[in-house]
């Protein structure tokens, strides 16, 4: 009996507590930087596309919502001809981000993507590309790649020695 009265009293005291509710459209939820939300394609510090069209994200995607077509520019730099994510299928698992070898595809803390028309949830490359380096600032894939694709000449990349002159005997 005493415990019942105590319960009632304690419940009554909750009246003076802080509310737990976040009044959503006016107040926003605090999302952590690595929260998995909307998918974006980032750029490298030179504002070139990071994506090299390796298809690993599309292969990793458990719901097959990513589709892309790789192509090459005149310097041999690979980039996607089109890059399409169907967000009505996407489950925001983040496997694409894990699979990406060039940090191109990233999930950002944003979930406000509601649409009246389902077709509007299919995002094309121009919708996905952002003018930012995302979570990995300073990373430039073609600077550390062994391939010269118009970004750097052979042997001029980061952590790279100039090519050895095989006709010289000097060390």
């Amino acid at each position: 009996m005493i415990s019942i009265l105590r319960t009632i009293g304690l419940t009554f005291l909750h009246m003076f507590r802080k509310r737990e509710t976040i009044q959503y459209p006016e107040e926003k939820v605090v999302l952590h930087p690595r929260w998995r939300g909307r998918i974006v394609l980032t750029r490298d510090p030179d504002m070139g596309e990071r994506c090299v069209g390796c298809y690993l994200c599309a292969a990793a995607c458990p719901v097959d919502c990513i589709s892309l077509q790789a192509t090459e520019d005149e310097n041999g730099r690979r980039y996607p001809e089109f890059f399409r994510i169907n967000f009505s299928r996407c489950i925001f698992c983040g496997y694409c981000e894990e699979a990406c070898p060039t940090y191109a595809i990233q999930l950002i803390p944003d979930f406000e993507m509601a649409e009246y028309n389902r077709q509007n949830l299919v995002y094309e490359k121009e919708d996905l590309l952002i003018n930012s380096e995302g979570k990995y600032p300073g990373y430039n894939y073609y600077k550390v790649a062994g391939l010269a694709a118009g970004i750097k000449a052979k042997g001029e990349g980061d952590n790279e020695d100039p090519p050895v002159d095989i006709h010289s005997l000097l060390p």
Partner: protein
Amino acid sequence: MSIILPYLLMIVVLLFTLTTIAAWLIWLERRMLALWQDRYGPNRAGPFGLLIVVADTIKLFFKEDWIPPFADKTIFVIAPTLIGATVLMSFVIIPYAPGILIADLSIGLLFFLAMSSLGVYSIVLGGWASNNKYSLLGALRGASQMISYEVFMGLSLMGVVMLSGSFRLTDIVLAQKGGWFIITQPVGFVIFMIAGIAETHRLPFDIPEAESELVAGFHSEYSGMKFGMFFIGEYLGITLISAMAVTLFFGGWLGPAFLPPLIWFALKTFIFILFFILLRASLPRPRYDQLMEYGWKVLLPVALLNLLITGGIVLMMNK
């Protein structure tokens, strides 16, 4: 005609007020529950979310009014009307303020007990006519709960009747001029409140509908406005038990003169309604057998003992 007209007017006003109060109690309950659970509750539609009731009502009216093909159609339709009707009948005898009451019956208290017992027909018939095992279980529980708790409710009120010497509710209120019956009849009040909660089958004694066990109990098969009738009946029941508790134990309209009697009555009733909601926010539901055991093994002896002691004291005082 000139005698009937004021009565008719009062009946219409009372009906309108009570149904409106019952409807807005839904909003009040949701807001207060939220308050006690660290939430906000409905606060979007209109000022303080008051218009949520209008939205709910429109929704209920536009829902499909479905009668299951396996149900007993006539009884299925009649059942929801009974609860509202019986509870509203009880409001006839409540003295709101001097002069503001519809019928000052000399057996007012008995009339109230009779009407609140009749309310169980709504549950039993609704559950029975639904032809659904969960509804039937709910109806069975409702019936047994009502029957057993009706006993203590009646017994707990007899102390009040002894002290005031009348079944007439105005007499009972006027007998409290010297001191409210809560002071002389605290045990009776506690038993009346517990029985009242069980009678209105409100949480924690909402065993007939027990959504975690019986889907929604006796009104599982109901939809649309028929469900709305059960809902309104429940809130009317809360108002009725609160009003009765105020009339019988807290001096009805009596109170310091700076507020009119009607306001005192409304204020006290409102506090009791809030207490009902607070109970819902804090207490878990007992098991069905625990409820019955508690009723017959604890409340019945206590009520009888209370009756005995009150009777003895009244006899002693009168000598």
